[in-house]
């Protein structure tokens, strides 16, 4: 009797199986990178890079192959946000977006605004939050369909390139961070800028956005290092500078751990006082030899502190003139000010008095010490 009662629910369980679409991994093509180029008003050239894993494999039925080729498809359409239907017609197997790890915009499109794309990326559940967005100096189609020295697929190359740089040179910039600063009050999004040069791709700087529009850039490398120092604690990254009296002797310093704290006073006044305090531990990796090292190290660190403070304040002044806030000073002020008003802050921000204070502690100068 019990079994008879159980039978019906078990039979019913098999009914909804028809509703599920299977995506067997070798019957689909995984789009791993998408590029969007500006063509004209409402017209977008979308390019997808699809790694072709199926070509490799030896006679033993498919051992992992050492190299993967990339197929790329391009299509001009009005709505480029998802995969256009036109693109599906070019592909042998259905294109799926679940493994996208990089999305590129060319500079023209970024200048016209990427709000529509941001809205789409925010809503689509198959798009992961850890993927990287980037602005390309040049055409994204060219970049995605190019041949590179690295033997991997271009999407993996791109992804590794950005990930590696974020660890050492650039602030954190993935889709999650982008959306957080795009929708959050008192913070503006930033993206890395990529450029194809020969058979390599390189990062040339950080793109500054205001309301989804590309408005300016921070060049690499020293400026981005200072920017990263001011925006988050990190470890790694090198800084190069020279002493005033000797411009030919460059000094190179390696960061082995930095911390940053913000303190805000008079957050609601017309010119808020913001103090950015950076504490950094460093290793001097390269410097001209001197007879009295202790005094010399002191001199270097003092000079470096001054240099970073000066450049950092210049950088913030530049942001204030452009009225972009990539450091999130507004958000920092809000956290330390009662009754903070975003509308008023917009007017106050360019007049804010931002000071940068840097303390450098030289930990060592190498194994010969």
């Amino acid at each position: 009797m019990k079994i008879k009662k159980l039978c019906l629910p078990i039979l019913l369980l098999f009914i909804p199986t028809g509703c599920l679409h299977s995506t067997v991994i070798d019957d689909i093509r995984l789009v791993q990178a998408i590029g969007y180029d500006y063509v004209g008003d409402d017209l977008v050239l979308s390019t997808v890079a699809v790694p072709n894993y199926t070509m490799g494999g030896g006679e033993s039925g498919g051992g992992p192959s050492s190299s993967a080729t990339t197929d790329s498809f391009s299509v001009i359409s009005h709505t480029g946000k998802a995969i256009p239907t036109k693109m599906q017609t070019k592909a042998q197997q259905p294109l799926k977006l679940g493994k996208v790890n990089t999305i590129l915009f060319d500079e023209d499109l970024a200048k016209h605004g990427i709000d529509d794309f941001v809205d789409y990326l925010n809503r689509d559940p198959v798009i992961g939050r850890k993927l990287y967005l980037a602005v390309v100096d040049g055409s994204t189609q060219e970049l995605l369909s190019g041949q590179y020295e690295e033997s991997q697929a271009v999407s993996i190359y791109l992804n590794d390139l950005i990930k590696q740089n974020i660890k050492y040179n650039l602030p954190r910039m993935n889709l999650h961070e982008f959306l957080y600063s795009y929708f959050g009050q008192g913070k503006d999004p930033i993206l890395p800028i990529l450029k194809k040069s020969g058979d390599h791709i390189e990062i040339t700087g950080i793109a500054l956005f205001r309301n989804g529009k590309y408005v300016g850039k921070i060049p690499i490398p020293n400026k981005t290092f200072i920017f990263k120092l001011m925006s988050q604690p990190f470890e790694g990254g090198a800084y190069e500078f020279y002493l005033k009296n000797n411009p030919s002797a460059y000094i190179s310093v390696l960061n082995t751990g930095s911390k940053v704290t913000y303190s805000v006073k008079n957050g609601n006044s017309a010119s808020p006082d913001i103090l950015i305090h950076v504490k950094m531990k460093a290793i001097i990796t390269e410097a001209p030899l001197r007879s009295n090292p202790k005094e010399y190290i002191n001199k270097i660190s003092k000079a470096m502190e001054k240099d970073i403070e000066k450049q950092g304040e210049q950088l913030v002044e530049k942001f204030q003139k452009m009225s972009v806030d990539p450091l999130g000073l507004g958000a920092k002020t809000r956290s330390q000010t009662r009754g903070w008003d975003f509308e008023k802050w917009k007017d106050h921000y360019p007049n804010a008095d931002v000071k940068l204070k840097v303390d450098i502690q030289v930990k060592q100068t190498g194994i010969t010490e």
Partner: protein
Amino acid sequence: MFWRNRQKKIPTKQERAATIKDLFHDLEVSNDFTTFEHKKETMSCWISFFKTLVDVEYVHRDVLPFIYEGKIQNLKDIKANLPVEDIILTRDAHTVQEKVMQGYIVVQMKKYDSECLVFSAIAIQGRQIDKPEIETSIIGPKEAFVESIDANLNLVRKRVPIPKFHVKEIQIGKISKTRVNMLYIEGIANKENVNTVLQRLNEIEYDHMIDAAVLSQMMGDNQHSPFPQFIDTERPDRVAGTLYEGKIVILVDGSPHALTCPTTIVEFFSAFDDYFLVWHFASAFRLLRLFAVAFSVLSSPMYVAVLTYHYQLIPKDLLQTLISSRSMIPFPPFLEALILELLIELLREAGARLPTKIGQTIGIVGGIVIGTASVQAGLTSNVLLIMVAAAALASFTTPNYLMGTTIRLIRFPFLIAAQLWGIIGIALCFGFFVAHLLKLTSLGRPYIEPIYPLRMTDLKDAFIRLPYGKQSTRPMFLRPQDPGRFNYDRAREKNDIDE
């Protein structure tokens, strides 16, 4: 609805002989039944026995000379003279039948006389006590149970030399009258448990009882459950250990396995070896076994689910390995996995059925020929081959054979669920099993006890085994009459030597 009740009530026949005469008519049909008249001047008597059940040498050396001696006139004289301790003078045909079938000798004054003298001359034939073959251990005792219940009881009694160790004998099997012994330590074992076992044993109505495994299926709480509810063991040391914990042990005559109850699911994954190792290693191996169970059940279903539905979950560095290994394969992942799983099960079954000498060939054929050939032919991917082989290996780490079988077979429902609904299906299937396990009991005690209901004190000997210094109480779920092994506070008191 679909089924008719086919189990009709068949009236059971009365199989006992009514009179001594009927009994002897029945017995004389068998050729190994010996009956002869011993004639002397003063008296004559009939001696009958089964020569296959009786120790013939003993009969000739120690029994017949006493009967042949001059002074004996009747059965009472024999009873008085024979140097045998268990002599019964009876007119009851049932008793005579029972005893004759066990290897007793019957002496009558006349043929088919209703007054019989029966006494024991049982020949003990069977294996010598040997090393354990299933639950082998590197350290620890190396004795295993044999088929004779008396030898088994001897092995246990040696380890529990106290008068409170009680043995209750019950006969099960309407025809076979198999001796079944229930062992427990009075004062430790819970009375309720003892009564439950006794009641269940008494209520079993079946014609025979061949082995302990059969008994465990008959008296289990849920006969339809794939999970065994009694631990069967061939180690007398393990039996003694569980007796001291407050458990009840059942021995069946003719079975080299003892049943211990009540049990919880985690005990099936603890080998008795664990108690001989230092607690760190014992705990590590237990966790390893539990991991092996999870891996063995879930690995190939996860492979099917992820490759069929959830391509997003694959790390980008693994994509190339998986896709290129699958690119030449004509089957969907489910069929691929099913074929390999069936192949492994076939190998295991073939290995179990064949004699050991041919069994080695099976290993070579299965492992090398079929494994590599199926990958080279492009029928299965090498990634899956590795996973399935590892899963099969992992399933063999379960120390209990019955539980190991369960673990190997429950991956098939998981596999089907993974194909139908992906990871949600696996979760669903897992939910079904959890619900079943929650409801399952062993002797009325919860089956997944240290987990639910959560008993913190019992966790000391579940997933990990804490040192003996911490094992001050017996398992709580057994509700032992005497819960303490030693006084924990007194054991921790520091004795100053100088005082």
